[in-house]
């Protein structure tokens, strides 16, 4: 039992930034735009650090896949309390096409290499909203998964997970090793303390290439076009319920 937790952290455009689509409709503008750690990844890091503080796990390793700047995201995780980081270097075209399938292959390979007990990821990233990486990683490893977690309790070699689902809350018990994905109400991430920011400087970030992990990054997806959501049209007022039903039928909505 390694007691090691792998936490995935993704560098995304900051949630407060107003997104602009590139004039050529191939994507969104990222140059010079403020980036930060995906909010759900922050929650994942917080949960892992909490487990370590309760002495239920021994080591928290923060992983990020991306270009040079992903190291900043790992540093933030280290400042929150992760012990060390792994930067999987992906840049250029590979980074443009990097998606859940590729990342889950990388996470699975790392989990085996690092002998991880638990993988905690954010439930989804706020840029692509895929909500797939956790699930795919579990499938590739043939590990159980506790997704949309709003409460995690370690119980010997099992984990009790309360999941937020459409109908309410579902409680499951899964064996370790396992993959968990963090939902909004799992915890409130801490602000890094200044002493931890100083300590983070000394913590190690290992550099790894996807090829070293035997992972092929080719994507079978091609982005055809990115465009703004349609402008909201003006509504109209009607006098009676009959008018309303009539209008709905007219426009084919009913």
């Amino acid at each position, binding site marked *: 039992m390694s007691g090691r937790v792998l936490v995935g952290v993704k560098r995304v455009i900051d949630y407060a930034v107003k997104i602009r689509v590139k004039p050529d409709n191939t994507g969104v503008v990222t140059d010079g735009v403020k980036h930060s750690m995906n909010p759900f990844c922050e929650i994942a890091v917080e949960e892992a650090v909490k487990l370590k503080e309760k002495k239920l796990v021994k080591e928290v390793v923060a992983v990020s896949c991306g270009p040079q700047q992903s190291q900043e995201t790992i*540093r933030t995780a280290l400042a929150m309390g992760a012990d060390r980081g792994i930067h999987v270097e992906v840049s250029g075209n590979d980074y443009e096409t990097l998606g859940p399938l590729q990342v889950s292959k990388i996470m699975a390979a790392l989990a085996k290499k690092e002998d991880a007990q638990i993988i905690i990821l954010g439930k989804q990233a706020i840029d692509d909203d895929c909500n797939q990486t956790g699930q795919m990683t579990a499938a590739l490893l043939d590990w159980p998964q506790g997704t949309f977690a709003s409460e995690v309790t370690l119980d010997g070699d099992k984990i009790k997970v309360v999941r937020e689902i459409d109908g309410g809350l579902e409680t499951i018990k899964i064996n370790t090793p396992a993959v968990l994905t963090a939902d909004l109400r799992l915890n409130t991430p801490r602000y890094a*303390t200044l002493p931890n920011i100083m300590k983070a400087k000394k913590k190690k970030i290992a550099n790894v290439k996807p090829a070293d992990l035997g992972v092929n990054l080719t994507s079978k997806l091609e982005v055809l076009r990115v465009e703004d959501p349609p402008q909201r049209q003006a509504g109209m007022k009607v006098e009676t319920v009959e008018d309303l039903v009539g209008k709905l039928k007219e426009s084919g909505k009913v």
Partner: protein
Amino acid sequence: MSALFKARKVLAVCLHGSRSLSQLAELPETHQLLRQTCRDFADRELAPIAAMLDKEHVYPAKQIKELGTMGVMAMEVPEELGGAGMDYLAYSLAVEEISRGCASTGVVVSVNNSLYIGPILKFGTEEQKKQWISPFTAGDKVGCFALSEPGNGSDAGAASTTAHQEGEEWLLNGTKAWITNSWDASATVVFATTDKKLKHKGISAFLIPMPYPGLSLGKKEDKLGIRASSTANIILEDCRIPLNNMLGPRGAGFKIAMQTLDSGRIGIAAQALGIAQASLDCAADYAHKRTAFGAPIGKLQAIQFKLADMAVAIESARLLTWKASLLRDAKKVFTKEAAMAKLAASEAATFCSHQAIQILGGMGYVTDMPAERHYRDARITEIYEGTSEIQRLVIAGQILKEYQS
């Protein structure tokens, strides 16, 4: 001195200077991370409540406690004493970002760090540091600095508060005025005359817990700005404190106060920068959104010139503040630079907040937008911890010394 020895000294200064200069161009990674953390905290925890704190004059106890947990309330204090063990450059970055969210919170942080903990860290005994600093690092207790009196602010040498030794105690009498944090503080550094004949060399510094018999507070001042921080008189009536509550040697009070204010000026410069930056943020955002004459007003040169002037004022004051911090961190004399930073930053704050209201027009005058609060918050930065006039005297004094043949 031989020419070679002189040359080596010059080289050492140049090399050190170039390291400091590159820090002015791009901050070290830890400082960038620290700055971002404080900015996130200010955006999420302070900015949303700043208007309410100001309107209702509420001390941000919860937020100060959180800042304490982060290490921001005792940034320079070594870790063994419960602090963050960081340098003054980090401190000035933190205070700027905090003040950008809420100027009142910024002054509470600055006073605790520079004016209360500062002199104890520099002049206190090991025992005094443990007793008077360690409990004040976590944000649940803050301190204050009592120098000004109703009869003297700039004229600090004329302290009329007295301290007489009676047996194994000091007996203090007098009134201190305009004391920031007073109503929320758990201790104060007080300056009192121990030997009137020695004039300013007869002033000593003392530490008094709060509340304490013989120490009472005047009414909370109803201020124009920084309303979430409390300001009041501290009244000492036959206040008896143990002999070892004296801070530093007898008669060193004036020197302690002046040296403490040198560092405090960097903190207030940082606070003023935060207010100025918040004003620029508000104005520039408005310039994009507000349309007049068929286009966003940011297209008009009159507005553009204002924004440019604001940005230059802020950036120059910021670089002065960083330089003063770097000099202090390198244990060099920084009196002139600290005074320049405080002067430039406070004048930038009043200028930028004034222009921000101008750019916002009518919207700048109402409480719906933060511009009016920045205007009110900025004004005090030209007054406390040394008026702009005093800063000019300090700077001129240093310059004349440099040019003395």
